């Protein structure tokens, strides 16, 4: 297999990057167009001659967009912190300790992560309704556990398994208890794995749609994906505002992806290949 890249290869690469990024590029260009140029003849012009930030202002003035951002941040952060915390113990036990039924438990975790959300929504909806948790942060954090916890356990198990077992043996020789070994030896080494897991869980919670759509219906408690999707009115769709809002939520993601791409890729592909 040739390992050197030729000029043709870079042409292909440029085309690929362009195709993938085109929708974003177009949305970015549309977000600075004045309303009149979003429709009609000028709708297909790439660049506007009258760039404006009106759409961006409108997103924050006419819609509770800041509130959506805050809601998503709170819900995704709490979900991530608490599920990764619970999962870290379970994953450590599954990866490093000897006890019966490990494979079954891991299989169960994997199976649960494949559950279709729609199969759990009606009882969960009735549950949060009964306890008055609709339109609250807790009302989303509880259902988000359904996908966040299995995901965290699954990823952390692969990370914990990669830490050399000799270290534990050495700690045991020195007379450390399993919990001491965990906190003093394993956990510090697992920090990168825990961090990667947190990023992936955070993204999953940030992007969740179905639970958020059904449980938090009040404007005050909507999350970003549902909030933006509900920008569209019955007859009109405010494309300018939607473009601006899309750009606003995409930029932090782009920064995050640029900063942590190595980690995210290692998390996504961890264990999907034999090592």
């Amino acid at each position, binding site marked *: *297999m040739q*390992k050197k*890249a030729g000029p043709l*290869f870079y042409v292909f690469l440029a085309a690929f*990057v362009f195709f*993938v*990024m085109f*929708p*974003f590029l177009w949305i970015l260009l549309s977000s600075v167009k004045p309303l009149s140029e979003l429709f*009609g003849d000028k*709708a*297909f012009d790439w660049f506007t001659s009258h760039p404006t930030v009106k759409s961006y202002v409108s997103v924050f003035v006419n819609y509770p967009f800041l509130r959506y951002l805050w809601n998503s941040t709170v819900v995704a952060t709490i979900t991530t912190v608490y599920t990764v915390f*619970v999962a870290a113990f*379970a994953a450590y*036990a599954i990866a490093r*300790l000897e006890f*019966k039924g490990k*494979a079954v438990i*891991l299989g*169960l975790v*994997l199976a*649960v*992560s*494949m*559950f*279709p*959300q*729609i*199969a*759990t*929504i*009606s*009882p*969960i909806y009735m549950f949060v309704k009964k306890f008055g948790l609709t339109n609250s942060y807790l009302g989303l954090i509880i259902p988000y*556990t359904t996908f966040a*916890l299995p995901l965290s356990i699954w*990823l952390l198990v692969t990370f914990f398994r990669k830490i050399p077992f000799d270290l534990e043996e050495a700690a045991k020789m020195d007379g450390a208890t*399993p919990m001491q070994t965990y906190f003093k030896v394993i956990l510090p080494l697992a920090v990168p794995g825990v961090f990667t897991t947190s990023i*992936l869980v955070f*993204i999953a919670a940030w992007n969740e*749609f*179905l639970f958020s*759509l*059904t449980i938090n219906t009040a404007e005050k408690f909507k999350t970003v*994906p549902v909030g933006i*999707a509900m920008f569209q009115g019955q007859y009109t*769709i405010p*494309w300018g505002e939607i473009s601006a809002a*899309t750009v606003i939520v*995409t930029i932090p*993601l782009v920064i995050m*992806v640029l900063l942590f*791409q190595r980690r*995210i*890729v290692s998390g*996504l*592909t*961890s*264990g999907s*290949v034999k090592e």
Partner: protein
Amino acid sequence: MKKEASMRNEKRAERILGYSLVAPALLLILAVAIWPVIQSFYYSLFDYRLNDPTKSSIHLNYSLDLEGYLQNYPFLKSALKREIATASEKTKATLSDVEQKLGKMDETIRADKEVGNKYEQVDEALNNFESPNEDIKIVELNEQAANQFTNTVKDVVKTLEQLREAGELKQPDKVVGLAQGLKGVIIEPNFVGLKHYKESLSDVRLWKALWNTTLFTIVSVAVELVLGLGIALLINKAFFGRGLVRATILIPWAIPTAVSALMWKFLYDGQNGIVAKYFADIGLVHRMGDLLTTEMGAMFSVIFADVWKTTPYMALLLLAGLQTIPSSLYEAASIDGATKWQQFTKITLPLLKSSILVALLFRTLDAFRVFDLIYVLTGGGPANSTETISILAYKVMFSQTNFGGGSALAVIVFLCVAIISIIYIKLLGADLLSDSASAKK
């Protein structure tokens, strides 16, 4: 001997520690994921509707809505008394008979001590113009009493209606109305068994939705696999700008599906959508508007948007698999004179098999339960042509507020997903768990 015992103790301690560390996570998973699935199945056996007060919860037995009863019976009783006072002799006898029947029924209800207690409490609350507590409002009745009640009320209503026809009553509409109000206070058990499944499975809409889901899944996953493999093979080399390409790949994956769906809706727009225009220009669609308003166009649009969002991710997974294939194998093969195609079919594909299967498993399941993308992009339309089974279940549950029927559909989705997983896991063998293969969103 001693050493052995201490070893055994140590093992035991480790086992106990293991279970106690796993326990919290396991309990949470049981409570928030497994229990709801079981409950979904349970709900699906009932005629469970949120918008109908007599069906808004699950009743295995007959019960009596005390609130409804006490909002009618006392008033009916006094109205009858007034009628009796002024009625003719013949009517008086009939009315007294009615009054007695109702009185006897009332006694039967109150005979049970517990029911009697709740009866008083609800009555008191109503007299104070408060709405009574949920858990005392509804009381269970045995089937016999419930049937007796229903029959008595039916008789009474019939008698009173006859009297009204004959013009014997002073306040005919009030009396008959109150008596009719008693008809709705018996709540029948809403257990329907597998009726929802039978109805769903004989409903063309379900089969259409299943077909749409299958079509969407197979086409999008197949295209994603071929494109993803192609891209992975091409970028499996050292080149300038790797980081940039990797970031490019991750962005579509990272943005919320709902947001990307909305973005595509803009690009596909029949009047102002740039992608719609380009598609029309190159002759892919007849008119720009065809993309979202025709059945074929809408399905194509949804698949195209999904391919855009997940092909890069597929490429990433396969690239990781490719990078584990030692290059020495290819070197040896080319020395032996193998062509590129032979190298691909004899080395790359066999060694990539488990990576491909894992990627396919997760992508197939994701595609099969697709919701956000289609809900935002087409809403299942036009004419249900992109309605997938998850969307259908959601609509039945939350738009028609038919939780029983919707839950049955949700259980069907669950079973399909289970079957798909089993097929893949059979193909993968034990690889998945022992290798701790994961390829997650």
